């Protein structure tokens, strides 16, 4: 491993610990007596201290050390937690986060920022001075561990001995301050696997690899290497404090008994197996674990993508059951599967065209295999939404505080899994919606009390699966949206006319808040209210092929409902023709296709429209949306034109296309970066013919057209103005 690899691990882990710290602090602020959270914070700070010291990030180590010092009296219950201290801890956290971010691009830290942060911490802890020293914990020492063998393991051992291999019991102990247990243990296991085979270990190999042990672990190894060589190899690994190798005696037939030879009694038992944080995962059936003063946090590798690894031919060979895979490799795999799906579709087309009956059977099989492969890879790419949810408690807390509001954030369904891409993309819209809820939704406590509500508002963030969709909701019990106010604002801002405003139902009026440039709060605040939040969220959701809904009752609160397809990689698309070019519109966006007669078109306020079941629907030519020339002359002889009725946000629009070719499963390929800037296309796909077809993002195409029309209308005025100026 290179030092940059260590840094990578350091950063990943540090971020995890910081997220934990953040969440625990938020809990602690609400419930200062929450012992679990204090311990959590203490442990996280301690671990970060150790890690950063090893990496040579001195300021981080110093700061976390100070945090520990300040927290100690609180942990031992000598002093209560003050709000001032919580704030100071938040400041420390922010500083740590800042450093972690700096480290991701730099290799070292400046100490400048340390002083200011330390001062605030120092001030906060002034009041806590004179705390009693922590209680000495009881230390119990285990010097003997017995590992019972299974029948199979016994077989392996006797087989190996018969074939002239040696069997060793190895105890490895890491240095007390070893900050990279995960790395060291990995290196140790790897080294041993090169020299021989691990038959048995305590704790289990995967636990060792994750660093879930106090300071040491036990291994039973079958090898043809001499004891000396093993010892030399292992002691050569840094941060390994002690290696004890004993040969295995035949009478240890049923279990391996490890005895510590040293005379001095260790202060703490290095071979303690640490409890796993997530409950119910591991039950240790041996190893008498006991309490210890220096309870080290287990390094937990959650959050990293893990894939099961297929074991080799010899199942007795110890192989780690998981591997870390870089996400770029997953993306590559996904891309390859997409290529496979495309090839399969082409293949199918040829077979059907040429009526190659004998190929139908193998083709059917191929179809199933690709389907399954696609499913599996999709699953590998899933991540729990917890990944983004974790950031929110802190954000909500800070925001509510700065606006002098009280907000409880409730989160449901953090375990729901979503495609990695969707998760990444969804983070920002959710931030906008939460901000919106805190800023515009939740009232200040006095106002809430007047309304007979709990002074603290509640925001619920929910994730749930519904067949092939995931639904995210942001629900607040704040003041809700006043449809009357919205109508007035929209007219004032020129977004709709007075007549339109009157015609709108309350429900429709509420939806107006998602229009670009809309904000009901008169003074745009720093937080939101620039009219971008809801609009941005809606645009993003729709660009991802999802739908966005708003429900609100005045005085009762507002709910935003975001619904997405589980995967973004392969979707159903409608193929349409426009000036002989083929384009794809995602089927989720389309409600129906209808043929209309040319005379059915009406022009209302310079906008072509038609009426579908009493609803006036604006019509757009696809050519117009794509800035292509509209072919002159009448449409078809029949006078019929094809209209796709699409759902754009909360309203419906009609899109005139030359021809609908049909519906097809399509694999979405992203466009290269230079093309991403051209608005209106969410990607492209390769058709059965091998041609590229662009996937249209109807929503932004229509927005763009409206903007162009607006500019055209005003362009006539601007040059005149400049002329007058001359």
């Amino acid at each position, binding site marked *: 491993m290179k030092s940059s690899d260590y840094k990578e691990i350091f950063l990943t882990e540090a971020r995890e610990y910081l997220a934990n710290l953040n969440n625990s602090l938020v809990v602690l602020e609400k419930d200062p007596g929450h012992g679990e959270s204090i311990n959590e914070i203490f442990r996280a700070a301690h671990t970060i201290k150790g890690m950063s010291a090893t990496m040579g990030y001195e300021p981080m180590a110093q700061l976390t050390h100070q945090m520990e010092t300040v927290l100690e009296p609180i942990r031992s219950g000598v002093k209560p937690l003050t709000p001032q201290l919580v704030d100071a801890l938040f400041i420390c956290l922010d500083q740590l986060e800042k450093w972690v971010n700096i480290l991701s691009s730099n290799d070292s830290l400046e100490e400048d920022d340390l002083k200011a942060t330390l001062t605030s911490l120092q001030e906060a802890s002034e009041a806590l001075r004179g705390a009693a020293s922590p209680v000495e914990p009881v230390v119990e020492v285990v010097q003997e561990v017995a590992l019972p063998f299974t029948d199979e393991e016994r077989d392996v051992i006797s087989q190996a001995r018969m074939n002239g291999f040696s069997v060793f019991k190895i105890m490895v102990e890491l240095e007390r301050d070893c900050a990279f247990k995960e790395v060291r243990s990995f290196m140790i296991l790897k080294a041993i696997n090169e020299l021989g085979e691990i038959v048995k270990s305590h704790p289990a190999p995967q636990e060792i690899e994750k660093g879930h042990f106090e300071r040491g672990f036990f291994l039973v190894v079958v090898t043809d290497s001499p004891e000396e060589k093993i010892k030399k190899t292992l002691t050569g690994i840094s941060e390994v404090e002690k290696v004890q190798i004993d040969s295995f005696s035949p009478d240890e037939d049923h279990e391996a008994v490890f005895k510590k030879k040293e005379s001095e009694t260790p202060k703490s038992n290095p071979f303690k197996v640490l409890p796993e944080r997530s409950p119910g995962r591991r039950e240790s059936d041996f190893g008498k674990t006991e309490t210890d003063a220096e309870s080290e946090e287990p390094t937990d590798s959650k959050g990293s993508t893990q894939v099961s690894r297929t074991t080799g031919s010899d199942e007795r060979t110890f192989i780690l059951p998981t591997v870390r895979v870089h996400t770029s490799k997953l993306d590559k795999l996904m*891309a390859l599967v*997409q*290529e496979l799906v495309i090839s399969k579709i082409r293949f199918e087309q040829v077979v059907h065209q040429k009526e190659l009956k004998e190929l139908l059977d193998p083709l059917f099989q191929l179809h199933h295999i690709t389907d399954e492969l696609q499913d599996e890879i999709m699953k590998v790419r899933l991540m729990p939404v917890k990944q983004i949810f974790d950031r929110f408690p802190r954000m909500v807390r800070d925001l509510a505080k700065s606006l002098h509001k009280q907000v409880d954030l409730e989160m449901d369904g953090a375990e729901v899994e979503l495609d990695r891409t969707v998760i990444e993309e969804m983070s*920002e819209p959710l931030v906008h919606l939460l901000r919106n809820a805190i800023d515009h939704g939740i009232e200040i406590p006095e106002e809430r009390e007047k309304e007979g509500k709990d002074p603290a508002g509640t925001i619920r963030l929910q994730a749930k699966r519904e067949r092939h969709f995931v639904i995210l909701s942001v629900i607040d019990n704040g003041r809700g949206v006043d449809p009357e106010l919205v109508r007035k604002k929209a007219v004032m801002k020129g977004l709709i006319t007075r007549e339109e405003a009157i015609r709108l139902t309350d429900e429709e009026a509420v939806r107006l808040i998602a229009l670009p440039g809309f904000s009901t709060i008169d003074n745009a605040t720093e937080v939101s209210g*620039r009219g*971008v939040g809801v609009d*941005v969220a809606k645009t993003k959701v729709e660009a991802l092929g999802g739908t966005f809904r708003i429900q609100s009752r005045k005085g009762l609160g507002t709910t935003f409902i975001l619904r997405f397809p589980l995967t973004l990689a392969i979707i159903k698309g409608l193929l349409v023709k426009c000036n002989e*070019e083929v384009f794809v519109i995602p089927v989720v966006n389309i409600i129906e296709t209808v043929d209309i007669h040319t005379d059915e078109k009406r022009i209302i306020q310079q906008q072509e429209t038609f009426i579908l079941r009493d609803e006036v629907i604006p019509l757009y030519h696809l050519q117009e949306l*794509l*800035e*292509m020339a509209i072919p002159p002359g009448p449409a078809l002889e029949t006078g019929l034109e094809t209209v796709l009725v699409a759902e754009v946000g909360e309203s419906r629009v009609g899109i005139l296309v030359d021809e609908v070719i049909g519906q097809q499963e399509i694999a979405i*390929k*992203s*466009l*290269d*970066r*230079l*093309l*991403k*800037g*051209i*608005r*209106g296309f969410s990607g*492209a796909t*390769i058709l059965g013919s091998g*041609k*590229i*077809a*662009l996937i249209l993002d109807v929503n932004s195409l229509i927005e*763009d057209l409206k903007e162009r029309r607006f500019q055209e209308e005003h362009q006539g005025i601007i040059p005149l103005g400049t002329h007058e100026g001359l």
Partner: protein
Amino acid sequence: MSVSTAEIFNSQAKDKAEIQLVVFTLSGCELALEIQEVREIIRVSEITLMPKAPKYLEGIINLRGRIFPVLDLKKRFEMPLVERTPETRILVVETKDQMLGLLVDKVVEVLRVSPTAIEKATQPVLNITLDFVKGLLTVRDRLIILFNMEKTFNLEGLRVVVDSEAAIPK
């Protein structure tokens, strides 16, 4: 990222190495890219129209799963247009994370030259503005323009839209 001509002079002159140039034509005018800038040269298959793009963006192509734009520089530099012939090629160039095809009338040859033979341009050559010209090379009676490929990743129409995209999140 970009290696300036001066740097080429320095590094190459030291070990007296030659540089290799891929020479191509646009409306009869000869231009060249350094060989390491050209990822590959492909024949023109079907180019798909990209709506809403600047005029000089000829369209998009799919090369082994990557979809990227092809530019017709003749349109950009307002050079006389030439019909596509069997000799028309696409030079695929690549920077860190972007790929681009350049539509050229013909790939003439790969030329080995000494870096010292490259002169600095002082004024626009034909319609090609100075910032696109890395240097000039005279080989007998031929004038070859050493083209600044990096610039094509930053052309007006494309650059502007990329910027506006970045501005959306606000």
